[in-house]
């Protein structure tokens, strides 16, 4: 069940030809952005549209979006990875199935529902979106870390113990090192998840590109909506690409 679920999670279909993928994504993104710019330049914008599509406004939204994404991811990493390691310890054997169940069920809670419920507790604003995003992304990362550490071959741990390492040394030098791919995959999941959900942050007045989409829909200005949607998609692809790059660079050699 666990491995099956993990296999059903995100992986990179381009695995082996990663060099190619690292070039293709930015090229396509540049092309899309250029096409978007050309299309908007050719449009006859009315005053509402031209006011929402200024360089300063778009830049501000981009900064908000990226800030929200990275801050949420950083918090998720700080919370979820240590907890995942703790949960993977043999003496916490009883917690693991609970975490897996809660993580699976937690996925069923719609992120927009979670965000709006957070609003009732904390009011609208950046912090609310941050809390909602962290709550949403913690469980998948925790589960990945836990499973990653647990999947380390017991024979390797046995060998390390036999070499005279203490439990702490085994954890630091063997288990965590071997779990790095799983942890990085979890980190990447968190990033891609939060960059998508950060779009919804606009509903609780946390800014980001979602604001363009929502404003465009509310004012019935399709160009604004489309710019917002395309930029949101581009930033998601860009962050996915960035984390794929980081994954390849940070992976310990020999794995």
């Amino acid at each position, binding site marked *: *069940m666990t491995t*099956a*679920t993990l*296999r*059903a*999670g*995100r*992986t*990179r*279909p*381009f695995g082996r*030809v990663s060099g190619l993928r690292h070039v293709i994504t930015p090229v396509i993104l540049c092309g899309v952005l250029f096409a978007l710019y050309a299309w908007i330049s050719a449009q006859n914008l009315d005053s509402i549209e031209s006011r929402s599509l200024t360089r300063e406004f778009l830049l501000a939204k981009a900064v908000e979006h990226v800030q929200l994404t990275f801050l949420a991811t950083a918090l998720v990493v700080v919370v979820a990875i240590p907890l995942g390691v703790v949960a993977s310890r043999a003496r916490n054997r009883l917690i693991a199935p609970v975490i897996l169940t809660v993580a*699976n*069920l937690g*996925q*069923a*809670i*719609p*992120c*927009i*529902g*979670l965000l*709006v*419920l957070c*609003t*009732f507790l904390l009011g*609208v604003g950046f912090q609310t979106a941050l809390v909602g995003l962290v709550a949403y992304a913690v469980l998948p990362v925790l589960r990945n870390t836990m499973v990653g550490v647990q999947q380390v071959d017991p024979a390797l741990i046995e060998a390390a113990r036999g070499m005279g390492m203490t439990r702490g040394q085994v954890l630091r030098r063997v288990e965590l090192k071997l779990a790095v791919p799983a942890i990085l995959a979890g980190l990447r999941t968190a990033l*891609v998840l939060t*960059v*998508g*959900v950060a*779009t*919804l942050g606009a*509903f*609780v007045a946390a800014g980001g*590109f*979602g604001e363009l*989409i*929502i404003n*465009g*829909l509310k004012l019935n200005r*399709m160009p604004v*909506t*489309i710019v*917002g*949607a*395309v930029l*949101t*998609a581009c930033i*998601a*692809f860009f962050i*996915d690409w960035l984390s794929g790059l980081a994954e390849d660079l940070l992976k310990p050699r020999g794995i």
Partner: protein
Amino acid sequence: MNFSEYVVSRWDTLSLAAAEHALVVGIAIGVSTAVGIGIGLLTHDLPKVRGLSLAISAAILTVPSLALLTLLIPITGLGWGSTLVALTAYAFLPIIRNTVAGLRGVDAAMVEAGRGMGMGRARVLLKVRLPLAWPLILTGVRVATQMLIGIAAIAAYVDGPGLGTQIFEGLSRLGSVNALNATLAGTLGIVVIAVLFDLFFFAVRQLTIPRGLRVRP
């Protein structure tokens, strides 16, 4: 008005929204299961096409749902159309990937045995590989369904059907009497639907997995 009173008094609206939510997810998952398994069956043996289909479905999943839903408005309009197209597109990755992984993961000895019994390629695929891959495929469909149930909530913003309407109603009436009740009803209703779908897949799993696979070595 407390939460239970709210649910009782709005039962008609809520049950209709819940039924629509389940329906839209059900249709989308049905279509993408049929298409996804088909793509998996056709491409699992062709590395290039397989890589391409996986890359495209992964790219679709990377697009944030609000963005995809709004980008579909000029093409499929507001409401059911965009919702169905977006949900179907999002479900492809887990289904195609698990189908491919399942079909390729079948023990070569089993395939050899099938061939030795005089089965052709197509028959081996349908009679040996597919049944053995079925548990993994079913897991993919289940994961996709859980994901779609959550995404369908966002579709309410582009006038899609379902319990998401309750959540957005709560958001737009923030601070008024029933705002919290509406949001809670929408969110909890979606969780209930997710649990019911999970039970459904558990039952399907029990009923459709070949008996030989359930024997534990």
